């Protein structure tokens, strides 16, 4: 059973997972997850490698559908609608639940085309609208000042940190309600990490953000809520150990295993 410390109520939650299980083929990867993700707050998923936190994150926009043989049980709802209900279009879901990956992955196109990609998918064709979206998105991602005079440059020519902010701008351009970030800072330099963290803080009041991170300092610094995942026995499914307000989790963890992990005794 998972331990909860002042976790968000269903009413204040954007995403609610109930008795959620996940399988890669025959491998049972996650089990018994009951999690409410607070709306317009930052939630951090922590835990040792292989604990399923990234897998769980990728369940939230059904990215795992792209892997053959995966299936789920239980329910996962976004604003009250089960995203795994029959007939739900994962493509449409992903427009509302954006994602940032560990490795910055701009398309091999110009900076402008990278940001305009999503709006174009949604049928925006007017040049002035696109210009507007590109500029505002880059501004919100705090990248505008650095690239405003080189929008036709290849996105891959930017530094790693800039690339990651370009990816964030790219997602912001489609105005998702939820932003999933899968270790967004582990492949970029420390100065850029600072910029990305500032950016998350600026976005949080209007966007539900979930971040998977290996850095406990980062989780403590930026998140409102923290969830700790653990796979106790190799080959067995991982599950949620403890979940609640970040302050509570880090200052007075109730579960022994959470405390061990936070204090660096394993993982």
């Amino acid at each position, binding site marked *: 059973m998972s331990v909860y410390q002042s976790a968000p109520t269903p009413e204040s939650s954007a995403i609610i997972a109930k008795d959620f299980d996940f399988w890669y083929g025959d491998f049972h990867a996650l089990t018994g997850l009951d999690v409410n993700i607070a709306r317009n707050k930052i939630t951090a998923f922590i835990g040792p490698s292989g604990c399923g936190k990234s897998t769980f994150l990728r369940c939230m*926009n059904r*990215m795992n559908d*792209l892997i*053959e043989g995966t299936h789920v049980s239980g329910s996962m709802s976004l604003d009250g609608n089960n995203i795994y209900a029959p007939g739900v279009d994962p*493509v*449409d*879901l*992903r*427009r*509302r639940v*954006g*994602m940032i*990956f560990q*490795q910055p*992955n*701009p*398309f*091999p*196109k110009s900076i402008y085309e990278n940001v305009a*990609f*999503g709006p*174009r*998918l*949604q049928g925006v064709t007017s040049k002035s609208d696109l210009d507007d979206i590109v500029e505002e998105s880059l501004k919100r991602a705090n990248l505008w000042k650095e690239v405003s005079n080189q929008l036709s440059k290849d996105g891959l020519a930017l530094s790693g940190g800039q690339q990651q902010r370009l*990816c964030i701008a*790219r*997602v912001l351009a*489609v105005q998702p309600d939820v932003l999933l970030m899968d270790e967004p800072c582990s492949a970029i330099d420390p100065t850029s990490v600072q910029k990305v963290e500032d950016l998350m803080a600026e976005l949080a009041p209007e966007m539900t953000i979930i971040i998977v991170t290996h850095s406990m300092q980062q989780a403590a610094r930026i998140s409102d809520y923290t969830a700790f995942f653990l796979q106790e026995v190799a080959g067995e499914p991982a599950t949620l150990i403890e979940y609640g307000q970040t302050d509570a989790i880090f200052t007075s963890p109730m579960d022994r295993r959470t405390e061990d992990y936070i204090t660096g005794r394993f993982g």
Partner: protein
Amino acid sequence: MEETPSAAPKRELALVSHATYVKEKALRYLFFACAFLAVVTVILIFAFTTYSAFPVFTDIGLANFFSLTWAPSEGEYGIVSLLAGSGLVTVGALVMGVPLGVGTAVYLVEIASDRVRKIISPAVDLLAGIPSIIYGFFGMVIIRPFVAQISDGLGFGALTAWFVLAIMIVPTITTLTMDALNSIPMGIREASYAMGATKWQTIYKVVLPAAKLGIVDAIVLGMGRAIGETMAVLMVVGNAPVIPSSIASPISTLTSQIALDMSYSSGLHRSALFGMGVVLFIISATLVGIVRLISKKRR
């Protein structure tokens, strides 16, 4: 080196022995010679074929050589209709083969499930292994009668060659396109899906543009294969060295004309065949040069 103040008997580091030095050096030159043989061969092919074709420049004359009429018995050695024939079958083969080859590659890399991929992928490899004579045979006994029916002729001609060559260049194009697609990082596909793109949108807005140069590579090499193909073409084009009146009437190509005439030609006729060989060699070397330029740009 400083001398160490140790009591142990000092053993100096051996210098490279002369025998080892000579042996390693000799082996190095031997390997180099083997590698350089490729260069020598290419030069030899060009030099020898050109040498045998020399009367084209001196006795036949380039004006005659690049004229329309091929009638060796009357002293007419014009290869233009043969060049046109080669061009015609190649273009048609590309028009049919490129969509098929690229489509197959995209399906295998981007769409197919593992199970389907494990069945179709070897099929593409086996298709590449089937010798051209079998393709020619198949084209002659199956496709030709079919073309004859729809065109009211014998079925020898460009149309039949298109079908045969299109199938033959599919494995080349598919294999190289698959390489190009596989070299695109998974991450940008995921990013596209995460933006709410459908599979098709991801393929044509992200994957295909990213693999563009690799696919051009594949097409150029497929083109080389089509131009250079001999036996399969020889068996289905009808071997009439003229500008054809329709795509279903007999034509001839550079390759098929060489294969056909070599058995009985002599004198200037034979020189002209070697001259055509030089033309083919230059075309294929140019295509390879283009591919190398593209590959350099890709990196």
